[in-house]
């Protein structure tokens, strides 16, 4: 049987706690790799050393964007979208 995911209501939506932390780990790992690579290259090349902070911001942001794309591929939104006419009474699922 498929294991049930633990979900909580946060910021007006339902989120899977494990996905949040795994995704965050992936994203922070990519950022950390960026930091380490730039730091190592800065030791070798003076041109990189003089622009280290700018490079960290630029490539760090790129790493976060890449992580966003990767995470969005495996973390699926926990929403069921229903379309209906206005005449029905609206309902919403409340936290347990």
């Amino acid at each position, binding site marked *: 049987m498929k294991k049930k995911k633990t979900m*909580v209501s946060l910021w*007006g939506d339902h989120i899977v706690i494990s996905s949040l932390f795994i995704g965050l780990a992936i994203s922070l790992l990519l950022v950390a790799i960026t930091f380490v690579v730039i730091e190592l290259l800065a030791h070798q090349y003076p041109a990189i050393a003089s622009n280290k902070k700018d490079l960290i911001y630029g490539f760090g942001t790129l790493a976060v964007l890449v992580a966003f794309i990767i995470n969005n591929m495996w973390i699926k939104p926990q*929403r069921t*979208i229903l379309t209906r006419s206005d005449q029905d009474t609206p309902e919403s699922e409340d936290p347990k």
Partner: protein
Amino acid sequence: MTITLSLLLQMGGIALLMTVLYVIIGIIPGTDETSVLVPMTVILVSLKLNPLLIMSAFIAAVVTLNITDSIPTAITSIPGGVMSTPLVGPSQTLKKHGYTSYSVQWMMLGSLIGVLVSLPIALAFWGLFEFISVQTGLQISNFIKSYNEYIFLGGAVLMSLTSKKKLVGLLTIIPFGFATAFLRNPNLVINNTLLNVLMDGHKLSMTPFFLSITTGPLVYGLFELLFPSVFQKQQVEGKKVVLLEQDVKRVKTGTKKVVKKTAIASALGSLLFFLSPVGVTMMLGEFATRDEKDEVQEALQGVAVVNGLSSATYLAGILISLFVFAFPISPAALGPGSIIFNSGANGLDGTFIKFGNSGLTLPKGQLLVAILIGLVIGVSISVWLGMKYSRKMTEIVFKYISQETVLIFLFSIIALLSFAEAGVYGLIIVLAVGLFSGWLNRKGAGYGVQFMALYAGNLFITLLKMVF
């Protein structure tokens, strides 16, 4: 610096990019305006882009977010952000009567009216101050600025007194202001070896503190999940059911009245730029619709007035703070605009504001061009998209963008910025101050009070030194 055609095109390009990005972010439910605007502005400033490009991007993002925030509220009754919370009631009424799409259109028109009204008012305010300065030789803004720390303290007191939890706000000011001023430069108060090792020679700017305050409620919300009782309360089963409505029903009368009320409320809201935008929106929004007996008319006026007000108070607050005072005098400038109004540190100018709030780093005319480009692109595209494709856009975002990835993106940007700024100390500060700030927010001390206390912080250190 001269404005070339290439620079104009770049301003247009970046404004377009930010408009598209913030249309998506605005539709995601629950996203707080300050939390999603500040990190992106920090990135643009850190990348050392031309300040005019940053200004166009920032203004486009602000207006787009204000406009698109209301779309999910109208369609699903989930607030798109803090500013759209007052829209939930009237939009539910309109939904009940079958006017969902029509209410989105009025929200868009309300925002458009708000922008069109607040821009001339802000410029007139600027012109009036310049006129008085030239005619009388009095530098009113310089006089006000020389007492800026006292003004921030006064602002924090005023904001506390106008909030629901007055006592909490008042009790927050000194401890929060003192704590943040101390953490920015602990050596001002004590010389501690452990702190010196942790700081590793770094001097902290305001950035980690801006990020801490803006993400505080979210950090605290996650932290609270560590407590089993809270976790059980927040735990949910199954996916969130989102109901998307489809209709084209319109009202036949009363539209002129809606436009008139929205314009008047936006004008009043622009003049109350120094107060909390949410507070002003709620207060004037309620006042504008109280005489209306018809439920649908009242709700329609409500959505248009609230949107007009939120756009007007935000825009007027930022423009007046920038052009008249060159320091943040409104909550909109203190919160979402905090990076724009950063006046630098250690004798160095900020991106837009000179060190010590002694003026702007760029000519006002050039800034106005950048602002107008951001404004025109942001408003025209988001209003057009909202009028035409609001339902489709909401469906796409709800279907393909998960809340987790948005939160991860936000946390990662904050980790990147705080670590790059001050290493491990920066990360610790963001977490610790974020938790404290989130807790205070939960207790009733809003962003406005906290930002004002942060700016007034050095005053408490000075007073403490005078006493001891």
